[in-house]
C-alpha cells in the first residue's frame, strides 16, 4: 500500500477535498502525509528585487495560514503532517518534489476549469499525471 503521500494544497476547494482524501487514506494505510504548496506567480522578469520579495512574502503568509488549518485538521485526525512552500511552476514542482522525496502517491484536487481552458492550457493535474513517476489521484 502507500507509505508516503504528497498532497498539493493551494487553498482552492478542490485542493482541500484532496487533502481530506489524503487524511482518510493515511488513516487507512498509516502513510505519512506531506503537504506541498507552490508559489506559482512570483513575478517573472522582475524590475526590482523588492518586487520579488514582496510577492514571496505575500504568498508565504497566505500559504502559512492554509498550512495551519491543515495541521489543525490533521491533528484532530491524529495524523502526523509535514508541509512546505516552494516557489516554481506548480506541475513541474509537484512532480519533481514527489521524485526527490520518494513519494508513492500524489493527491491533487480537480481545478474545475472550463473544457475550453483544459483543451488549450491543460490543468496542473493533467501535467502532473504526465510527468509524475508515481501514482496520482485526482479528487473531484
Amino acid at each position, binding site marked *: 500500500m502507500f507509505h508516503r503521500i504528497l498532497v498539493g494544497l493551494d487553498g482552492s476547494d478542490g485542493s482541500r477535498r484532496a487533502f481530506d482524501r489524503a487524511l482518510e487514506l493515511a488513516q487507512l494505510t498509516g502513510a505519512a502525509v506531506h503537504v506541498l504548496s507552490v508559489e506559482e506567480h512570483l513575478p517573472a*522578469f522582475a524590475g526590482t528585487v523588492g*518586487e520579488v520579495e*514582496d510577492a514571496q512574502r505575500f504568498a508565504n503568509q497566505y500559504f502559512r495560514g492554509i498550512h495551519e488549518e491543515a495541521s489543525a485538521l490533521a491533528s484532530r485526525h491524529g495524523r502526523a503532517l509535514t508541509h512546505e512552500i516552494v516557489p516554481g511552476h506548480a506541475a513541474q514542482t509537484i512532480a519533481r518534489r514527489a521524485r526527490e522525496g520518494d513519494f508513492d502517491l500524489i493527491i491533487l484536487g480537480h481545478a474545475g476549469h472550463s473544457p475550453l481552458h483544459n483543451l488549450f492550457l491543460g490543468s496542473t493535474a493533467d501535467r502532473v499525471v504526465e510527468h509524475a513517476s508515481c501514482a496520482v489521484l485526482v479528487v473531484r
Partner: protein
Amino acid sequence: MDSNVWLVAAAWMALALAASLISIRVGVSVALIEILIGIVAGNFLGLHSAPWIDFLATFGAGLLTFLAGAEIEPDALKRHLKPALVIGFVSFLAPLLLAFAFAYWVAGWDLRASEIAGIALSTTSVAVVYATMVETGLNRTELGKLILAACFVTDFGTVLALGVLFANFNAWMVLFVGVTAVVLWYLPRLTRYVIARVGHRVSEPEVKFVFLVLFLLGGLARVAQSEAVLPAYLVGLVIAGVFVRDRILMDRMRAIAFSMLTPFYFIKAGLYVSLPAVATGALLIVALGLVKMGAKVAGVLPLTRLFRFDRREGMYATLLMATGLTFGTISALFGLTNHIITQAQYTILVTTVIGSAVVPTLIAQRFFEPGIPGRSDAAPGPHQVTAAVATSAD
C-alpha cells in the same frame, strides 16, 4: 486635458493600476508590464509626458537605483569578493566594448550614441537574476549569492560609466566628487543615528533624510553634467547594511517608490518606444541582443570555469548575467533625454533590453538549471516545517 494636472495624473495612475492588476494576474514583473503599457499608450493613445511627470520619473529612476544598491547583501559580497569582482567587471566590460563597437562600426551610430548603446547593454538585471534563482532555490546557496554579488559589480560598472563618460571634468566635478566622498563616508553612521533618535515616526524623518541626500547629490551630479543615478547607487550601497537590519524602512521606501514614482518612470520609458521603429530596426534589435549575449558568454563563461563552477552552473550563471532591464532602460532614457540618441535608436536599445530580460532567462531555466542541494525531504528549506503531531485521537 493637458492643462488639468488632476486628469493627466488620473490617466497615468489608471495605466499604473492596470499594469499592477495585469502583473498580478499573469505573474510577470510590474516593471515590464508598465513599459509595455507605456508602449501601447505612446503609440495608440497619444499619451505624452509633462515636466512634472518628468520629475516623478527621474526621481523614480533615482530611487530604483538607490534601492538596487541597498538590496545588496554586504556579507555575501565580502565572502565572494574576488570572484564577484572579476566576473562582475568582465560581465560589464565585455558587452560594453562589443556593443559599442557593433553600434559604431556596423550600425553606423555616432560615437556618443554608440557609447550609450554599450552602456545600456552592459547591464545585468539583479532583479531578473534574483527572481529566477528564487524559483529554483538557488538564491539561498553560496553559488546564488556569488552570482548576485557579481551582478551588483556589473551594475556598478554600468552606473559608473553612465556617470563618468558624459560628465564635464571641471571644478564642478571636483566639488561633486568631494562632497559625495564625504557624504558617503559619514552616511552609514548618520543614517543609523537618525533612525535611532527619530526613526519610525509618522512624519518619517529617516525617509526624508535619505531623500535629502539623494536630491543633494543628484543635484551636484547634474551640475557636473554627470548622472544622478551614480550617487543614488553609491548611497544605496553604503547604507545597504543599515537597510538589511531595518526592514521597516526598506518596506516604506519600496511603498513610496512602487506606488507613486516608478510607474511614472517605467510608463515613460515605454512611451518613447516607436512601434514603426521596432519594425524597421528588427534586424538590428536581434543583432544587438546576440552581441550582448555573445559578449557575456565570451567574457563570463571562461571565468566561471576558472572559479570552478561546473559546466551547467557556469552556463546558467552566464545566461543570467546576460539579462537586463532597469539599468538598461535608465541608460537609454538618459541618452534620449540628453539628445545623445534619437527616438529610433532609443527604441532599438529599449526593445533589445526588454528582449534581454526574457530570452536568456528562458534559455537558462529551460536548459541549464543546476540541481539544488538541500531540497530533499531530509533537509528542510526555510519555509519547510514539521507540524505538531497529535498522537491521540480526538
